[in-house]
């Protein structure tokens, strides 16, 4: 597989995944951009992986989880041109977002927990694969998910 072929089919799903992780289209673009630049520069190594897709997803997830230590947030600030590619929310969608408290609660979770939730409830991956992507044990995945769910449930009760 070439980088071009990979990008043809995988860029859109990765971007959707990044939106779920960050909750923000601009940050998602920056996250995917930073990851994919690295992917392109190191394509030979990526292509050698058993599943390049999973390899890249792991890169992107690490980049997201490690944002404090990494540098992609810096690029958010440096990004020059505003882009027209982000669709403006319609009024209808906006009101849905307003009602959508669970979405805002998600943003308060630790990044690793949010990533685990996205991988299980959006990407529908088995815990084994989530553990592989997050680089931890299956038990750790389950405990972070249950902690995250407990936090969200507590928010429900308060709200």
């Amino acid at each position: 597989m070439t980088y071009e072929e990979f990008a043809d089919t995988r860029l859109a799903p990765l971007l959707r995944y990044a939106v779920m992780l960050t909750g923000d289209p601009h940050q998602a673009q920056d996250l995917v951009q930073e990851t994919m630049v690295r992917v392109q520069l190191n394509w030979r190594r990526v292509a050698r992986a058993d599943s390049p897709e999973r390899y890249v997803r792991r890169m992107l997830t690490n980049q997201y989880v490690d944002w404090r230590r990494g540098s992609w947030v810096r690029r958010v600030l440096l990004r020059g041109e505003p882009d027209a590619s982000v669709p403006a929310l319609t009024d209808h969608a906006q009101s849905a977002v307003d009602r959508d408290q669970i979405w805002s609660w998600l943003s308060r979770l630790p990044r690793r927990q949010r990533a685990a939730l996205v991988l299980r409830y959006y990407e529908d991956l088995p815990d084994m694969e989530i553990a592989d992507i997050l680089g931890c044990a299956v038990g750790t995945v389950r405990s972070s998910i249950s902690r995250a769910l407990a936090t969200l449930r507590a928010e429900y009760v308060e709200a």
Partner: protein
Amino acid sequence: MIEDDLRAAFVRHEPLTPSTGPLRASIDRLAATRRRRRQRFQAAGVTLALLAALGVGVPQLRPDRPVDGPSLSGQPAGTPSEALNVLLLGVDGFGEQPSYRLADSVLLVHIPADRSRPYLISLPRDLGVSIPGRGVDKLNSAFFTGAGEPRPDLDAGYDLTRRVVADLTGVRVDAGAVLTFAGLRRITDAVDGVQVCLPKEVESWHTRRTFPAGCQRLDGAASVDLLRQRRDLPDGAFDRDRNAQRYVAGLIRAVSAKDVLSNPVRLAGLLSAPGKGLAVDDDGLPLTRLVAVLPEMDSVDPVGLSLPVGEPVDDRTLLPLDPKLGKAFLAALAEDRLAQWVAQHPERVNPVR
């Protein structure tokens, strides 16, 4: 159920996803830029920027015939010049792909406008500085923050450190280089060893090797060993910084003595020596201009200095700038009057030979 609400929330937000077209174009653009940068950094020729900037081999480089302006520098040689500042970073980490890197030696080489002699200014690695994207932390973590992990990028680490150093000192950084252990070893061996003069005996915490007081010629492995020592030195990281200055002073002498810069064969050998262990930045200052500047230097004997710092406050390990001396020193550096400052503070000079 909360799980169902979650699934629904994710699906409902799918329309937030931007289109991929512009993103893909910007990925390609950025990747092309970085690929070019990488190639530039790997070009052996720019290594000359490091040596040239250090004032290496200055008298030997003086050309027999006057330099033809346009061919070399694009401007007449001997134009009244400005001060130059070159940032040298010594980073730790072993092997081809260490999982992280810290810059434990941060050395600013200042070449005054009058081209009298180079100044080697150590910036303490524990100095508290403001690092974009990280907050206030030790200077050596700027490289770590920029380079990232688990595959540190030397260029990015250099870029962020350069920014932090420029903010801290207020001077423009004209060129710079990052030296890994491997690069240090190879460059030392390429000049057949470097003479380092120690005021006191140093015993290696890592290899148990003893470096006696006095002058000694060290090969690449020994140089790396010496410059890693901090724990058992009375003044810790400060003593290590002083040893780094003694090494650089010795490297300059070694290269000068060998006529490296005037001998094309030796020069080519030295330039290719550090290989991937050295990344050089010549963004701010074209190499050709540096070369044109060299014959103007009077002496290659550097003056060793450290940025004056105070005691850590509130139990923290971050060192603040010395409240009195620090600002005065930085002002002297920015205004290119270090000679005057050194005359006023002779006790601050670190003997390098």
